[in-house]
Each structure stands twice: as structure tokens, then as C-alpha cells.
């Protein structure tokens, strides 16, 4: 919220010291006045904050019309810094998605008109929530309120398709091309099916039925040979679908990001909104992974390597307004020997 305070919204940081912080809590009520007073104080702070009326500062107020044909908002005149990171331009106009319209109206920075009649915040919500789900808006506003830059993925792919498509296909934070190539080779190796050398296969073919264990050689000099002979189960190769029709719901950028709408950088987080029911099926998750963020994994230590994984994205799991973010990472187990 701090990052938006100069735009005329409420500044919650002014509430200051009496708000109880995260961290150690008392185990149980101890019946003392001290504990009770402390609780009472922070409750009062909360109620004071909530009783504050929503102030609309006329000077900085942005005005927009609801376009009921395209179901988006059209800004009358750009004001303030919002449009550095929100909306998109089209024929000299700036347009806003429903979630952006609700967000700006709700925080008192914009007034929206329908057929030149001003709408109440409730009115804006009742119109806009026909075109985006509540879960969708919950996630959008949650990130926005924390100061993140949030962009609908559809917008990125449509408006600046070239830039975005190319970034999804390269490894971020790569140090050098050569290292990168080696890395891809290594990952492929970890993910591919092990083909034993020809001599091994001949041995299996001729004597296969006579071995009484996977460890078929008369003797082993190193354990790595033994582990290779034990290999049978592998990680399934990714089935690459050619054109990437899938896209995420939101791209999220950290608050400090130098953001340019016409040339957005690589997003910090890729978000898919789902309602809290069951975890999607594997083949659905695999589709998400195809367009997920690729991780530059340069770790040699097998544990760190497996923990960091290869590709990652975030599910925003929404249950009646409560959001839980779950990071999904695809990985494989490197050999310990």
C-alpha cells in the first residue's frame, strides 16, 4: 500500500505502533490487566481505521466510462501514476479491464460512468463482476494492495506478443550461453530414459533369463556401475505441444520493478487462479508447466538441485475470499553417486 500512497489513497502506515505484529503470541489469556489493555488498544486502532470514510480527492480523480459493448473501461483523461502499470493504449485511448476498474474505484481514485451517469462502488462491482470472477478479482487486488505490479496475461500476449513469447522460451538469469547449453543438456539427461550401452544390452539379450538379480555383472568395482544397472524407472519426458495456446492468468512483478507497458520485462511470478476444490489433474498441471517459468538451476549438490527444480509457477487457491498461494515446481532426482 505504501507504494500507492502518493496517489491519494489511504496510508495505513500512519496507524503505526499500536498494531500487533506477526510473531510471538501469548499462549493463553492470563487474566491480567496488562494483556487485556494491549488487546483493547490494537482493537481500537483497527476500528478507527475502518471508521475512516473513503475520501475521493476531486483534484486527482480519474474519470472513466464503462464500455458496455466491449465490457471494459475507457479512461477519459490520464492522471496520476496508475497508468504506468495499468490498462493498455489503443487508438489514443487508455482501456482498463474490469478488475482494474473495480480496484481503482474501490480505492477512491477513479469514478466510473455508465451512459454519463456516475456509478457507486457497489454499482461498479455489480457490473464488473459479471465479466471476471470474484476469485479473479480477489487475487488481483491482493497483489495490488501489497504493492506488486499485476498484469493480465492475455494483455501481454495480445499487445506485445513478440517480446513475451520469446521470454517464456528462454531461461531467465542465465549467466552465459555455453553454460546454459550445458545446463539444458544436463536436465535432458536427468529426465531422459537410460539406455544401457550396447554390450550390456547384448548381455541381457543372451543371458537375460539367467540372471538372478539386476546386478548381473560378475563383480563391480565402483557403485556407480551398480546403480546404473539398477536403473529402470525414469522421469517421463515432457510432451511438447507446438503452439503455446495456454496462458497464465496474471503476471506479477515485484514492487520495485522498472516497468514499461510497451516492453514488459520477464515476470517475477506467473499466477493461475483456481478455486479451492481439488488439485488439478496431472495433465492439466503439465500444460501449465509448459509455459511456466524456467529456472536457471546451476547447483551441483543433488539436494539443492532437486529442491530448486526446473520449472515453476504459482497456484492462487481461493476459498470464499481467502487466498492461499502454492508454488508448484517440477523437478527430478539427480543421481547421488
Amino acid at each position, binding site marked *: 500500500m505504501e507504494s500507492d500512497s502518493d496517489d491519494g489513497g489511504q496510508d495505513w502506515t500512519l496507524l503505526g505502533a499500536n498494531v500487533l505484529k506477526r510473531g510471538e503470541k501469548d499462549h493463553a489469556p492470563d*487474566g491480567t490487566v496488562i494483556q487485556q489493555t494491549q488487546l483493547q488498544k490494537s482493537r481500537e486502532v483497527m476500528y478507527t481505521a475502518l471508521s475512516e470514510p473513503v475520501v475521493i480527492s476531486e483534484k486527482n480523480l480519474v474519470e472513466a466510462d464503462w464500455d458496455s459493448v466491449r465490457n471494459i473501461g475507457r479512461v477519459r483523461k490520464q492522471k496520476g501514476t496508475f497508468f504506468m502499470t495499468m490498462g493498455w493504449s489503443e487508438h489514443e485511448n487508455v482501456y482498463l479491464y474490469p478488475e482494474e476498474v473495480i480496484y481503482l474505484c474501490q480505492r477512491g481514485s477513479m469514478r466510473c460512468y455508465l451512459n454519463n451517469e456516475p456509478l457507486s462502488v457497489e454499482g461498479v462491482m455489480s457490473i464488473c463482476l459479471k465479466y471476471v470472477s470474484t476469485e479473479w478479482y480477489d487475487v488481483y487486488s491482493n497483489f495490488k494492495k501489497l504493492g506488486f505490479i499485476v498484469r493480465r496475461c492475455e494483455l501481454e500476449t495480445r499487445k506485445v506478443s513478440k517480446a513475451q513469447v520469446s521470454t517464456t522460451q528462454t531461461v531467465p538469469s542465465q549467466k552465459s550461453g555455453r553454460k546454459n547449453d550445458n545446463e539444458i543438456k544436463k536436465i535432458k539427461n536427468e529426465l531422459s*530414459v537410460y539406455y544401457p550401452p550396447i554390450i550390456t544390452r547384448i548381455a541381457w539379450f543372451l543371458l*537375460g533369463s539367467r540372471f538372478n538379480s539386476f546386478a548381473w555383472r560378475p563383480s563391480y568395482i565402483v557403485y556407480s556401475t551398480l546403480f546404473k544397472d*539398477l536403473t529402470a524407472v525414469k522421469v517421463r519426458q515432457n510432451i511438447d505441444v507446438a503452439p503455446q495456446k495456454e496462458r497464465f492468468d496474471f503476471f506479477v512483478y515485484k514492487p520495485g520493478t522498472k516497468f514499461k507497458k510497451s516492453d514488459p520485462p520477464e515476470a517475477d511470478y506467473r499466477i493461475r487462479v483456481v478455486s479451492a476444490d481439488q488439485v488439478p489433474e496431472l495433465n492439466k498441471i503439465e500444460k501449465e508447466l509448459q509455459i511456466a517459468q524456467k529456472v536457471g538451476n546451476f547447483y551441483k549438490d543433488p539436494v539443492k538441485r532437486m529442491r530448486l527444480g526446473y520449472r515453476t509457477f504459482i497456484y492462487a487457491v481461493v476459498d470464499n475470499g481467502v487466498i492461499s498461494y502454492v508454488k508448484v515446481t517440477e523437478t527430478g532426482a539427480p543421481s*547421488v553417486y
Partner: protein
Amino acid sequence: MVSDDPFFNSTDSGSGPGIQLDGRFLKTTTNKGYNKRAKDVYVLPLPFSLNSLPALIPHNPLSVFMYTVALLSKPLRFTTQKRHKAYIDSTSQGTPGAFVPDLQSAMELWQQGFFGKGTLSRSEPSWFGRTSRRLGLDGGELTLEEITEARRAKRRKFKKEREQQQLLELKQKQKEGVLNPADANLLDKNEKKQIEDNENNAADSDAVVTKVRKEDTDLIKDGVIEKLETLHLHPCEAVFLCVCLGVLEIDGIETIQQLLQTFFPEDSDWQKYVVYHYFRSLGWCVRDGIKFGVDWLIYKQGPPFQHAEFAVSVQPSSGRPDWWWLHANMRVVNNAKKAMTLVYVTKEERPDYTKISNVAAFRKALSQYTVKILTFSRFTPSRCRD
């Protein structure tokens, strides 16, 4: 209401070996020291011995010659592996798995790759040594259970001290005023309990270690403690040792087909094995995960060296766990610094065991299965802003 009791539970998440205590209990006090010793005991990653080469001294031509000869001839010379014996428990309520009664075999299977679990121990079959020491007979090295017990005694002491500290604080706070006169009794009650506890204290913790029970004297036959403990191998461990390494014989089991039918009757049993085999064949140590509500715990080396890094739940390819279950598991598992991992087995039905007549057929059947590994962790946006 179900409450997990960390005191009583044989479950143990934080059994970091080697905690500083009064020296009577522990020989090694740092993790490093413990690991050094662990490295000497747990040398082999599997209960399978290598055919080692003679030392190579590059500037000594004779050594180079011997080395070369050995290098060329050794792979052809047979190394016989020690075969351990196990039986299936057909009497008890069908507990699956195989039991290794011989103490020497049990120790070797544990020390070489951490297979099995002592039926009276947390993992390593250490009951005999523990009991001998408890009853005042010589029992050799200190076991993990005893180290844990020492740590827990320390924790109990800490809690007692904390309680006293908080009682003082509460007294201080109450000087400022009490909301309800009835609450003042809380203090009296606590104080009374404190005194009682202090009185019981000495008897409480030490008694456990020294007291000899009737149950114990029954164990001693002719001055020797009866060897009660056996090593219990999980069905997956039994199959891996039998078929993949060929170092285990199970009484009454003649064919692979029979082995699979006995140990993996359901598709889900087979799926668990596929995942077990995947990690084992890459050199990881795999152990049962019930204590964390998952199927497997994955260690880089094994329990004496470090905590498990991954908690694995095996899923069929069509598996759709619900988000509530996943969140509950993530909480538990992340608190113990493990990664919640779902391993999907991409083919669901178990193979037709009647067609698996030899090792080659088993390997072929197994290689029809692949896995997909995903880790899930909680993400908190407010902590990831920069």
C-alpha cells in the same frame, strides 16, 4: 480431538544427533563429530560388496602393472554376495513385509543402505544394546534413541524453567491489576502445581532409566537377555533386496511371480514400489513416511547423517488430492524443513504378474513405468516483495 504428543510419540522429527548434555550421556557433542563416526560405520551404500582394486602408486611401475592387470581381470571374476535370510510373518494379523531374525544380518542390512526397521526401535535395531545398558549389563555404543531421550529430558527441563520464569512474570503483571478475582486463583493453582512438580521432579525423569521392571527380569534367561528384536523389512525393501540386488532369500518364496503376488497385491502397492525403485536406483535412501503422513521420506545418505529432505506422496496419474489435504501436509512437512513432493506414476495398473517369470521380465515390466515429480510449497507474497 486428536493431539499429537511429541513426548510420548515414537515419532521423531528433530532427532538431531549429538546434543550437548552432561558428558555422562554423550561421547560426541557436535554433529560433525557424530557424522565422522557415522562415516566409519556406514561405509557401504547398499548391502552389496565391491571387488576393490589394489592401491595405485603412479611412479611405481610394478604398482601400475598390478593395477592394470586387476582392472582388466577383476570385472570377470565373480564376487559372491552375502545372502541374508528372512521369513514372512503368517501368524500376526497379516503384517506385510519380511522379518530378518539374525542379529548380524539385521545390523548389516541397516548399516549398508538403511534397510528395515528394528521391531522395538525407532529405526536401527538397537533394542538389545539399549536394554542391556538399561539393565546394567554392558551394551556398547550409545544409540539414537538414547540420544533423543537425553534431548527430550533437556527439553523437559527447559520447559520447567520457562514455566517458573513465566510464573514470576505473571506475578509481576498481576500487581498492575486483575480483571476477575477468580483469575487470581490461577496463580495459586499454578504455584501449588509448581511445588508439587518440584517434589516429583527427581523421581520423575531418572526413575525411568534405572528402574528394573518385572517385565525385564522375565527377559533374562541364564544371565543373558533374550534377543527379542527382529528386523522388519517393508514389502518394497524386501523386493528390492531380493530381485534387484539378489542378497535376500525369503522362506517359502520361490519365484518372482510369487514374491510380487505376496507383497504387491494392489495397484497402489506396485505404484509405491515404482517410486521406491526410482529413488533407490539413483542412490537416495528411501524410508517409510507414516510419521509425516506421506508414503516415503527421501534422504541423501540416511537417517544418521541428516534429516530427510523430501516427503513423498505417491499419486496415480489420475490422482487429484484435495487442496485441504495438501495444505495440511505442506504445513507439517515444511515445519520439519522437508519439501512436500508429489510423485505421479504415469501408468496406473500393476503389470500382469503371471507374465513375470524372471529378472529380465521384471526389469522390462518396471521400465514401462515413468514418474513425474512436483514439489509444492506455500508462497507468501508479502514476504517476497523484494
